[in-house]
């Protein structure tokens, strides 16, 4: 490794602008004549729209236009799509209800947009939006998935009887049933996975500018995948033809999945910019973000794990109800199926697995992929089950896991995934050493002397990243291929621009990707510029989510570098009259191995562009592109160990130690990877201890729609962490990368809950484990003990 190459802890190239306030986010952008949009939103969870009177609003100061769903429909703007087809087990396609960008007849969740006001200022737009008079006829609403399935529940979409979107299964039901019937021990749990709001700190925003003279649209937007946005806006919503639409996702202030999707506001701002004849900007306020950013999780699950007399896992049966909210968001259908149920083998050899998933409409905000997307839910099921089983069997949770680990690779699970590489013992051992697992009893006794209940819990997670082999996901229902593209442009002076279809919104791509170039082409980081997030500059790309940018995005860059390197070597060999195979590129020089012959990197690059002396038949220039389609998913895995102290008087939980040992494959910049783990773990701790959407079951109102009601982890809520890595390389991509973006949010919730339930001696505890819930669970276990 060079000082700036693969493995180096170099500072991030993007930070200079962030620490000086010079980042450029969508809401920081202005164009001449720009007006503001304010949306009229449903105050009801379920209501007929009997009429919309815009007359008063239209007359208010500064108002340019008031536009409704009816006009949007008349203009032929298409409904919002779901991009992944899932079929029920009876072969029928999923029941997808129409999802217009502005509701026309019916609103199905609080916050759904029904009209938009365009005005000169934000205040004018908001005041006029308040003056739009919608004649609402309230309908009964339902907020939870199990209630929506019950007989007599309000029906949300006509084409989805009983609110059922699909009833899907994977695995072998008969084999799983047989394993359970013949088991020496069965552990059974009812598990809920709480609904979360992603809460990227930058609210969603869009600035749309239609240029009538050129019949061309520009959209600045808070997107994790601007090319996908352009494609969908064009091909499905018919807002603008693809070649006349430029989508720019500049600095984006966090995404965590919530900025993958193409939202109504982006469609409407583009459409309204042409309709009203002015550039239109919209920025969500925080309550709009709570009400309309796609939420995450919200599963209700029953799970049974069967063991033989030797404590070997022999079967697993899982039944899950997934709450999808009022509409199917872009990738919603894939989350509780191919991103969840396919990970239910965990790190273990389990011969028989079956999972059934029912996806359900409710009168709540749509749910889609949020950091981890299905994999946290799978890990939570598995690791709560294993920990509980160890307690029931009276064996060490660590050793029960170890005895059931997959030890040989590749390993084909019964639920599609083929694990390519890993060393689960190594991460377990590293975490146990880091946590001084053996010394826990002493720490527990010491805490008891201080009046605190100390508990320890672990979680061994595995996830599938590097999303994804296009052919494989196509066969599973995906509407797109999930490859990535890159172009490496070497300038005549030897500096390099890398154009990538990945998008950075906190991941540090401008640094990490440049480190790969520095390593391979022997130039300094300052000589490399990463270009992303603009459909005019980068031809196409699938964007950033599912921890795919290292494994897939960098692999595309690596392939393009291969081609650049090959051409540069041909030129250098020709210039120095040497054999191509003897040429080495390193440290800014191009050398003939074993001799003192060399040229500067910049001299070879210049020669490519002067073209005065190139090999016979070679085209001038030094610029290469590549598309990379992964051969398999990648499988990051690891072990997290959490120790907590609970105050028995209040139920308050302190996380006193958290140890993470992750196997992410090859790591490019350890400093950036540590940050990803820290952030992911804290989001997981947030889910475990603090966060959770509360809907009023009668009215469908989101009660937790501000930071006062939805607690986010703050600096004084969370500990520091002991973070380390073990390494097995991914054999399926050129760099051996597995991905690190989601692991923390996947492994930490079960580790925390396992620790708290250990501390209080009561396994009946749901997330978020607030002080009140922990105190009640503690009281219940004390009562139970007294009764024994």
């Amino acid at each position, binding site marked *: 490794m060079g000082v700036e190459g693969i493995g180096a802890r170099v500072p*991030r190239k993007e930070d200079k602008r962030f620490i000086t306030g010079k980042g450029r986010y969508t809401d920081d952008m202005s164009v001449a004549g720009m007006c503001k949009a304010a949306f009229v939103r449903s105050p009801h969870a379920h209501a007929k729209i009997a009429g919309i009177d815009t007359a008063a609003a239209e007359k208010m100061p500064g108002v340019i236009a008031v536009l409704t769903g009816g006009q949007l429909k008349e203009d032929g703007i298409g409904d919002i799509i779901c991009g992944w087809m899932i079929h029920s087990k009876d072969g029928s396609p999923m029941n997808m209800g129409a999802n217009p960008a502005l509701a026309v007849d019916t609103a199905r969740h609080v916050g759904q947009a029904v009209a938009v006001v365009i005005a000169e200022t934000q205040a004018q737009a908001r005041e006029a939006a308040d003056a739009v008079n919608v004649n609402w006829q309230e309908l009964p609403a339902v907020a939870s998935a199990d209630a929506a399935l019950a007989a007599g529940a309000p029906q949300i979409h006509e084409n989805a009887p009983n609110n059922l979107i699909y009833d899907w299964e994977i695995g072998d039901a008969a084999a799983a049933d047989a394993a359970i019937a013949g088991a020496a021990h069965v552990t059974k749990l009812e598990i809920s996975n709480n609904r979360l709001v992603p809460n990227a700190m930058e609210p969603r925003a869009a600035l749309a500018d239609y240029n009538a003279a050129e019949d061309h649209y520009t959209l600045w937007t808070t997107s994790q995948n601007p090319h996908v946005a352009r494609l969908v806006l064009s091909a499905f919503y018919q807002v603008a033809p693809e070649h006349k639409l430029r989508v720019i996702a500049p600095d984006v202030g966090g995404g965590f999945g919530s900025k993958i999707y193409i939202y109504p506001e982006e469609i409407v701002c583009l459409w309204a910019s042409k309709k009203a004849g002015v550039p239109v900007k919209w920025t969500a306020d925080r309550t709009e973000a709570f009400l309309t950013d796609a939420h995450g999780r919200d599963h209700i699950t029953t799970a049974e794990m069967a063991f033989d007399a030797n404590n070997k896992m022999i079967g697993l049966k899982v039944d899950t109800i997934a709450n999808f909210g009022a509409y199917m968001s872009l990738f919603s259908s894939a989350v509780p199926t191919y991103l969840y149920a396919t990970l239910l083998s965990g790190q273990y050899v389990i011969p028989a697995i079956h999972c059934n998933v029912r996806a359900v409409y409710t009168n709540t905000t749509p749910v889609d992929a949020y950091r981890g997307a299905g994999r946290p839910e799978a890990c939570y099921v598995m690791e709560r089950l294993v920990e509980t089983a160890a307690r029931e069997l009276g064996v060490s949770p660590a050793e029960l896991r170890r005895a059931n680990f997959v030890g040989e690779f590749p390993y084909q699970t019964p639920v599609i995934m083929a694990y390519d590489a890993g060393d689960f013992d190594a991460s377990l051992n590293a975490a146990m050493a880091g946590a001084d697992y053996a010394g826990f009893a002493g720490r527990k006794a010491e805490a008891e002397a201080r009046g605190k209940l100390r508990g320890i819990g672990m979680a061994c997670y595995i996830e599938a990243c590097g999303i994804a082999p296009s052919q494989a996901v196509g066969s599973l229902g995906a509407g797109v291929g999930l490859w990535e593209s890159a172009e490496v442009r070497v300038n005549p002076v030897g500096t390099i621009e890398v154009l990538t279809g990945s998008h950075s919104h906190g991941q540090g791509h401008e640094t990490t990707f440049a480190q790969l170039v520095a390593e391979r082409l022997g130039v300094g980081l300052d000589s490399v510029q990463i270009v992303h997030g603009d459909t005019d500059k980068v031809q196409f790309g699938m964007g950033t989510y599912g921890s795919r940018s290292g494994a897939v995005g960098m692999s595309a860059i690596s392939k393009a570098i291969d081609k650049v390197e090959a051409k540069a070597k041909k030129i250098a060999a020709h210039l120095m009259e040497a054999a191509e195979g003897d040429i080495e590129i390193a440290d800014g020089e191009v050398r003939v191995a074993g001799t003192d012959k060399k040229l500067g990197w910049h001299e070879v690059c210049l020669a490519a562009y002067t073209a005065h002396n190139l090999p016979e038949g070679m085209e001038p220039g030094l610029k290469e592109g590549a598309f990379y389609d992964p051969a398999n998913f990648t499988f990051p895995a690891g072990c997290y160990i959490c120790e907590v102290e609970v105050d028995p008087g209040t139920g308050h939980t302190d996380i006193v130690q958290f140890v993470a040992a992750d196997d992410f494959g090859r790591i490019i910049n350890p400093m950036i990877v540590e940050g990803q783990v820290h*952030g992911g773990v804290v989001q997981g701790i947030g889910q475990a201890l603090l966060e959770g959407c509360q809907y009023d079951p009668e009215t469908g109102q989101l009660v937790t729609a501000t930071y006062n009601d939805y607690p986010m982890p703050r600096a004084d809520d969370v500990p520091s962490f002991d973070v380390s890595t073990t390494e097995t390389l991914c054999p399926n991509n050129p760099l051996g990368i597995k991905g690190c973006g989601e692991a923390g949010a996947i492994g930490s919730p079960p580790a925390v809950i396992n620790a708290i339930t250990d501390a209080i001696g009561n396994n009946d505890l749901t997330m978020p484990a607030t002080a009140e819930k922990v105190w009640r669970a503690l009281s219940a276990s004390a009562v139970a003990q007294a009764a024994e």
Partner: protein
Amino acid sequence: MIEVNITVNGEARTAEVPPETTLLTLLRDWGLTGTKLGCDEGDCGACTVLLDGMSVNGCLVLAGRANGCSVSTVEGLSVDGRLHPLQEAFEQHASLQCGFCGPGILMSAKELLDANPSASKSEIRIALSGNLCRCTGYVKIIDAVAEAGAKMAAHGGQSNG
């Protein structure tokens, strides 16, 4: 409309604004977009600036309230191109990820270290508890503030020298 006169990062500025205009809106209208709007309710701290040296949520302070006052924003943190020790430490530790919360956190940290460059990590955590960050888990931010404080303490509390 009301007239407001505010010294921002040492530079006198004047504006005529509707009385409901917040300091955050005015700063951003002046092109100082480093200060961010994250919630507009005083909960997230992305709009933190120093008003006469004291940290405030720019979204909760009316521009008129800042009349005659001195305001410091992230854009004024470095002097003559020399980064503030906090900025240097944030860069060296890769403390930020998406960067959106950074300007507010830097200003909260500046208020703390100006008063107490030797602040302990638990004091730093409490001082930053009004600033939400969703990306970083705060770890590298806390480390950087502690390091910047140590550097400032070594220079007698001075930041840019």
